[in-house]
Structures are given as C-alpha cells and as structure tokens.
C-alpha cells in the first residue's frame, strides 16, 4: 500500500519493461526505497539508524562469510585459527577486526534506533507490528552476538558460554537436562562450539528475513515522524529517493567514520583482554563480564540476590533478565496515550530521560564487579526499569496533559521555519 500520490513505477527502457512483466523486483525496490515511497518531510537524524542497522548487518554478513573461509570450529584449533587469520591470512586482521567491531556498531545503531522509537512513540498504533518484529530482531541479534563471541574460544568465550547456558539450569526440574542438551555435553566443548558456529552462520539470514517483514510492516502505515502526527496530504511528504537516500548516504558516511576509527585505531577498546587467553575449563577469570551491549541485562540478572517467595534468587535473575526484554512486546498496550511524540508529552519526556539514565547506570553496574555500591545501584535501577515500563508508563499515559499540537506535519515545519526567521531578525 502507499499514499495515493505515490509516484507510480513506469519503466521506460524495454529491458526494464520486460523485467517488470517477468519478475517485478525493480518495481518492488522503487516502491519500497525509491521515488515510489512517500516519507514525511520532517524526519530528523534519528531516523537514519534503521538504514544504518541494515548496513551493519550487511557488513557483518560479508565479513563473516569471509572469516568462515579460514576459521575452524574445533575446540582444539579454534583459538589458533583466529590468530592464523590475524597473522597470516591476507588482510585477515582487517576482516576480523571489522567483524568484531561491526558487532558493536550494529548494537550502537540498534540501541539508538530503539530509543528513537521509545521517545517518538513509534511503537504505537498503527505501527505495533513494526515494533514487535523489531523486538524479535533484537532478540535474534543478541543470540547471534552471544554465539559469535564464543567462537574465538578464548577465556571469555568459554566462560560466557558456561554462564549463559547456565541460565537454563535455573529452570526447575528440566533445567539441567536442557542445559546439557544445549551444550551437547556437561560443559562447553567441541559439540557446543560446532553448533554455535552453525547457528551463528544461520541466524543472520533469519535476521535479514525478519528485517524484510519489519520493513514490509512499516510500509503499510508509512514511516512515523518527529511530530507523531500522521501524514495528511502530499505536502507532508517527499519521495524516499532522492531525498532520504541522500540523507542516508550522509548518515552512512558518518557511521563509517566511527567504524573505521574503532576498527583501525582501537580495535580492542570494546573487547576484553581475557579473550586473548585460550579457553581453560579449569580456571575462571577473576572478573567475567559480557560484551558491553549485554551489560544492562547482566546487571539486572545479578541484581536479584534474595530468594523471594518460592522462587530462588538465581531463577528470579534469569526470569527478570528475559522479562526486561519480553516486556517490550507489550509496550504498545502499556502506553495508552494517543499522543505519539514525546515532544508533546512533557511528563513522558522526563521519564524517558530518566529511563536512559537508568539504563546507562545499569550498564555501568553490569561492567563493574559484584561489590558495593554497584550491587545496590543495580538493584535500585533494575527496580526502576520495571517500574518505568510496568507502572509509571501506564499511569502517566492516563494523567498526562499533552501540549497543543500542530494540525499537520507541514504546519509544524512552517512554524519551525517562522520561528527561525523571527529569531534571526530579533
């Protein structure tokens, strides 16, 4: 579907006409990311991150396929095969560091994309399905990243696999058998490494498939925008191409600058020294931490230290960690405010920034050792995290009085420019 004023695809060249009759892929592209997709004219730079996440996935798939040509998924040689890539394979160090830091870049842009959605209410009707599919992508990304981190078979790889599969052993009765089944053994070893490699190779293509659904679902109502007001007429929109292809091109440039700076000048900044020690099942590193993108969730996991009711602390931690992500599935129905953009929701805006702060503190606690004050902070902030989504958000969406809103996107744009002009003359 599209808006009635969307530019129709009219192939001129006979070859394109022939193609359009047989397999209309050019038509699909034209209507999805070409001149045939009208997009609100007022998107700000926060709307760049969807395309950037797609770019990051492409980078990961391309570098990953190449790495798989040299990597050996065998517990005996995996560590050395990665070092073989780093030392002997032509440009191997570049490809491996690009893949390693590409994962971090992927999470950076996806977190910005998620927080964009939270601030501007992109999860609200009519885009609930876009949001739900996005949460699915996020879960798949986390699984893929975890399994990828195991592959170099360093100390953090091994103990990460040990701890994360340990979550499952928290499940009563069936937990231990499930963990043994997942690992194909009683501790991470060759069987686990091989299946993680297989799944690590598979899941990115599943992610690509869900991304297609995510974009499909997006194209039914069309893109949201910073005012949260739906598109009313042609004036409110511009064609995706050339307007947003140009803007996304600039976004990709900035993204690549950051990516290149990380990959070439500080490739191990976001990694951990212990992963350059080969896996040793007999000795745990003094301080095990996951990769940075899991820190907030790791802090939530560790915050539960009390056997509350009939559930022990370990199971509470695991349930809470999964719940912290799973509650995002219910977000479109937890927040009942009809106003989307927090630009017009003074109360929600305050709590949004408190949530951002909360997640940063959780991340910091997840990185730090399990001592005070981090334990207290992670307990407090984990409580606030659940309070935000499950208690505060439903309440404020009832009691909040939104600010006056413009009638249309165009009116908002023109008002902004009038302000700029009067500010310039003043």
């Amino acid at each position, binding site marked *: 579907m599209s808006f009635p004023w969307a530019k129709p695809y009219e192939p001129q060249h006979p070859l394109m006409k022939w193609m359009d009759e047989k397999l209309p892929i050019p038509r699909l592209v034209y209507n999805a990311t070409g001149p045939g997709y009208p997009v609100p004219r007022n998107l700000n730079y926060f709307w760049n991150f969807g395309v950037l996440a797609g770019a990051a996935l492409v980078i990961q798939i391309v570098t990953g396929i190449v790495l798989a040509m040299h990597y050996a998924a065998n517990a005996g040689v995996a560590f050395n095969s990665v070092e073989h890539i780093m030392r002997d394979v032509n440009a191997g160090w570049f490809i491996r560091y690009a893949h390693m830091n590409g994962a971090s870049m992927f999470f950076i842009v996806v977190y910005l994309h998620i927080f964009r959605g939270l601030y501007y209410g992109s999860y609200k009707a009519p885009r609930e399905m876009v949001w739900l599919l996005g949460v699915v992508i996020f879960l798949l990304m986390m699984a893929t990243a975890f399994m990828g981190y195991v592959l170099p078979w360093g100390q953090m790889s091994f103990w990460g696999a040990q701890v994360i599969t340990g979550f499952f052993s928290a499940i009563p009765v069936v937990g231990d058998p499930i963990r043994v089944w997942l690992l194909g053994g009683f501790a991470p070893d060759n069987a686990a490494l091989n299946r993680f490699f297989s799944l690590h190779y598979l899941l990115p293509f599943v992610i690509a498939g869900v991304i297609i659904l995510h974009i499909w679902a997006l194209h039914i109502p069309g893109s949201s925008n910073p005012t949260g007001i739906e598109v009313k007429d042609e004036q409110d929109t511009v064609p995706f191409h050339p307007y947003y292809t*140009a803007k996304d*091109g600039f976004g990709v440039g900035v993204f690549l600058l950051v990516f290149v700076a990380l990959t070439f000048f500080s490739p191990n900044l976001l990694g951990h020294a212990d992963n*350059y020690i080969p896996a040793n099942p007999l000795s745990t590193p003094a301080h095990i931490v996951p990769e940075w993108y899991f820190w907030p969730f790791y802090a939530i996991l560790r915050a539960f230290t009390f056997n509350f009711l009939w559930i022990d*602390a370990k199971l509470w931690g695991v349930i*809470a960690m999964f719940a912290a992500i799973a509650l995002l599935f219910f977000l479109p129905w937890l927040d009942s405010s009809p106003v989307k953009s927090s630009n017009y929701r003074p109360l929600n805006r305050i709590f949004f920034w408190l949530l951002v702060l909360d997640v940063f503190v959780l991340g910091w606690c997840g990185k730090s050792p399990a001592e005070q004050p981090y334990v207290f902070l992670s307990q407090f902030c984990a*409580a606030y995290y659940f309070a935000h*989504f499950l208690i505060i958000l439903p309440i404020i969406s009832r009691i909040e009085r939104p600010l006056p809103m413009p009638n249309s996107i165009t009116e908002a744009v023109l008002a902004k420019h009038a302000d700029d002009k009067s500010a310039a003359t003043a």
Partner: protein
Amino acid sequence: MVRPLGFLVGLGFIAALLCAIFTTPLTNEPNASHAFHKEPKHLALSSDGLLPHWDKAKLQRGMQVYKEVCSACHSLNLVAFRDIADLGYSEGQIKSFAKSYDTIPSINPDTGEPSTRTGLPSDHFPAPYANETAARAANNNALPPDLSLITKAREGGKNYVYSLLTGFQNPPANLPKELQPPTGLHFNPYFANLNLAMAPPLHDGQVTFADGSPNDVKAMASDVAAFLVWTAEPKLVKRHQVGWAAFIFLLIFTGLTYMSYRNIWADKKH
C-alpha cells in the same frame, strides 16, 4: 488486561528487588590485598599513539632478551621465524637464526621415532616444554603462560609487562601475615595476587647487546615489552597506515554526501 497484569508483575519484581536491597550489606568485605596492589607504570614506546612505528633495533634487542632469558620457561607459539623479517632481518639472517634452534619436534624418517631437527623459516619458535604437564612439573605446578599475545591478554598490556618485570621487591613491612609470599613465591605489587611463582627473571647486565645499548633491568624490560607488543599485534603499524588512508577518504566522502544532501533538500523546508 495488559496493564493490570503488567502492574502486578512489576510489583513482583520490585518487591523481590527491595528484599534483595534490604538483605545485602552495603559495605564490601575488606580486601587487604587491594591496598598493596599497584597500577602499572606507563611505558612509552614508538608503537604507541595514532602514528606508530616499530623501533626495529629495540625489537631486535627485545627478541634477544626473550631468547636468552624468557624462552627458558615461556613459549612463543604463535610467532614463526619468518615473521621476524618485520624486525629488519634479511632472509639469510632469518635462515641462520632458524637453524640455530635444533629442538624442532620432528619424526625420524627411517624409524618413525619422535626426534628433533634444526629450524626452518616456516617453523614457529619451539616451546621450552613438550606440554602443559611438563611445564607445570618443572615449575612447582605454576604454568608459565605463552607470551605471543601477552600484551593483549593482560589489562595494561605493555605497561603491565614492564611493571611486572621491574616490580619485584621485598614485601613492605606492614604487609599482613596472610599476604606474605609463601615459600617459592615472590612479592610483586603489580601482580593481581601480589605473590607470583616467577622469580625475578632479569638482572643488570644479564644480556649483552651487540649495539652496546644499556642492559640494566629497566632497559631490558622495556625492550622485551616492546618486542611482545609486536608479537601480539604484528600488523599494528600497517593497521594504522591503512586506517589513516581509509579515514581521510571517508572524510572527503562524508563531506561530499553532506553537500549532496543539502543540495537535494535545498528547495524543501524540513
């Protein structure tokens, strides 16, 4: 339905966390060893920073220290003789260097018995012990780690290696009894546990350098730390060179895309 249920679930998590907060002591167990542990000293090397280069003479000296001192206990498994071309050695020098090792594991072609042969440039530095068990047996059950990646595998990297090598000292007078080095261990404030199995490996004047460079403990520790930066990341200099080319290219590209973006939007208010 979602909101009331969510409310209850939220209260459940908060209640569990409040119980956790009230049952967790707010003070940490005192850890005496923290007070005696020191952060590594800074070691400046030519391979630091955004425009690094290798100080080849220093790397050669570092390799000599490794060969004459460290290699008695520590392996360097990931480094091949051919790799030392980076240190400024010619093909002929590499061949004769490799040949000076006669402990490369091999198989006697006539009998099939395990034997040894002299090294070739394609061989890796031979390990001092046949396996982990042998290494532990010879070192009072402590395993001397492989040094190939040591500057990447320890927090602090080169600074840590340098500080550890120069940091052996007598335990301070106020060191509690339980932290005193047990027999066979040596006090070093830069080591996580304060007491490590390695005896001070370097002594002033231990290695004689052909170029007459200083050979006190600090100089040798600095040389071998520089060498171990290279063994851990042999592509470090090349990486920065390629990085700058890519970065400058992308700066221009990003500038152009910005101009193109402004251009295309010139007639649209947004």
